[in-house]
């Protein structure tokens, strides 16, 4: 187990390094002068001032030198300073991260809670119209854009007179109001996840139902419920862990739009304002942290996977 763990962690290191490199390179895509682009047309500067600014930001040095310095700084946990607010990018991200994390966790809980049972029911509903209905339903769930669903939820709840959706409050201040503000955004995010999980679970359960050990279990007279619970689900639900981990990336991306729809002060709003204001260090920071989070979540699910199913330790 320890060797397996070590191998997985070692495998994640080059991915993180690659992610840092990509984030560094994105800013170099700027056609022309990043500094000029940032300053825009309103700010008039003399060539001397520009030169001075360039020196301050280290933009006058060779690209590889800037790259090495960036790597060293990121390794030390220094993500730079916001160009707009002069606040530390790391602190800003740390203050926003809990909102997005809570949103993602709630969405995963809802998605698993809805998707897994639905998948099991769909798998055991045979091949007739009922099965087709389930399949169409999951496809519809996959097709509805989460940010539109969110907008419709807002519209619907205001039509129903539920005005008190409320603004965001940290859960440690008022758990009730926090949940009231987070519930609809989480639902909007969870529907797509539930639909996709349902498809996986259905396929997985159908496959396991055809296995010989299930036939054996039935042959020895075990009831349908016991077969399903003890033999089918325990094997069929293992891949679900991986799917949830993999979907986290989409959740983090989807959270950007959902936070904008519901006005939640998370990482999504942060990155959007960074994009609109051309706050490049902030942008780099958020994109990098998200990518690293995604790698870590996938690593955790891999480890969990190996723990749940001891057969999977690779070599």
């Amino acid at each position, binding site marked *: 187990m320890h060797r397996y763990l070590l191998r997985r962690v070692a495998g994640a290191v*080059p991915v993180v390094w*690659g992610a840092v490199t990509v984030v560094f390179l994105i800013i170099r895509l700027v056609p022309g002068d990043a500094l000029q682009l940032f300053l825009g047309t309103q700010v008039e500067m003399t060539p001397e001032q520009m030169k001075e600014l360039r020196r301050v930001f280290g933009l006058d040095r060779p690209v590889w030198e800037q790259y090495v310095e960036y790597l060293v700084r990121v390794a030390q946990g220094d993500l730079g300073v916001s160009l707009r607010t002069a606040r530390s990018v790391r602190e800003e991200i740390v203050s926003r991260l809990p909102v997005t994390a809570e949103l993602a966790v709630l969405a995963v809980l809802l998605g698993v809670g809805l998707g897994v049972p639905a998948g099991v029911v769909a798998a055991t509903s045979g091949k007739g*119209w009922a099965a087709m209905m389930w399949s169409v339903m999951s496809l519809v769930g996959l*097709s509805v854009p989460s940010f539109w669903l969110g907008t419709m939820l807002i519209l619907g709840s205001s039509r129903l007179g539920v005005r008190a959706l409320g603004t965001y409050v940290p859960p440690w201040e008022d758990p009730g109001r926090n949940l009231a503000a987070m519930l609809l955004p989480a639902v909007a995010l969870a529907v797509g996840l539930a639909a996709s999980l349902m498809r996986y679970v259905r*396929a997985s359960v159908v496959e396991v139902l055809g296995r010989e050990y299930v036939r054996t279990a039935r042959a020895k007279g075990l009831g349908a419920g016991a077969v399903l619970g003890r033999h089918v689900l325990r094997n069929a639900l293992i891949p679900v862990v991986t799917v949830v981990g993999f979907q986290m990336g989409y959740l983090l991306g989807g959270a950007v739009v959902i936070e904008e729809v519901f006005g939640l002060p998370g990482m999504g709003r942060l990155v959007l304002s960074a994009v609109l204001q051309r706050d490049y260090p902030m942008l780099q920071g958020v994109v990098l942290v*998200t990518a690293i989070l995604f790698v870590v979540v996938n690593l955790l699910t891999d480890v969990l996977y190996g723990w749940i199913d001891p057969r999977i330790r690779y070599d």
Partner: protein
Amino acid sequence: MPRVRRWLTGAGAGVVAACLLIAVLAPVLFWERALAMRTEALLRGPSWDHPLGTDQFGRDLLSRVLVGARPSMLVAFGAVGLATLLGATVGVAVGYAGGVADHLVLRVADVLFAFPGLLLAMAVMAVMGPSLGNLTAVLGLVYTPQFVRVARAAALTVRSEQYVEAARALGASELRILARHVAPNAMPPILVQVSLSLSLAVLSESAVSFLGLGVQPPVPSWGNMLSEGRRFMEVAPWNAVAPGVAMAVVVLGFNLLGDGLQELFDPRGRREVV
């Protein structure tokens, strides 16, 4: 394939075909109507003149929804076309050749997988500036790793088939083997991936436009229509409902088509939903 399934696949294909037709024709037919402001008819409900009502500038909502199909289809087919071309070529080549190139390409794909596509697209749009071309290019790049994986897996399985060995024994060149044996076998999974990615691309384009980084008003796209419409949805809910329904129907069409293709090519196969 069961009859219902066939019917659903046909419906998906129909929706996609209709949307393509609308994307080509609507801007020619309804461009003026989609942009013409009528101050005497702001935020009207559905009527004979305006089947879906009007927006906050009195523009005809139906025309705008129809015209909005164009950026959606342009970005979706452009990005997925790019990803297919790039990903399939690279994937088949490295899967067939193996070795260091294979290893390296997989590592690069791993890194690109670590970024949520939408976030990467936003970052690049911030740097390159919002334009349909940039969005298409970025999304194409974001979808490429998935195609590399699918094509590579197909090439790997074909590589060790006996008919490939036979072809080689008969003196066929590597290029001929690639073109005649490996590529055709990699086609079905790639086609399935194409239809799945198309639905994702439609969603991404509208999300980016919704955030104000894609198609810029007054040119209509489903994303920016929803973003404008939701400010007035208390008085004119149609403005927020219509573009979303258009998105959902088109994405559902792509998904139905992709599902059908999947079952057609690999009836017992378990589908990898992304």
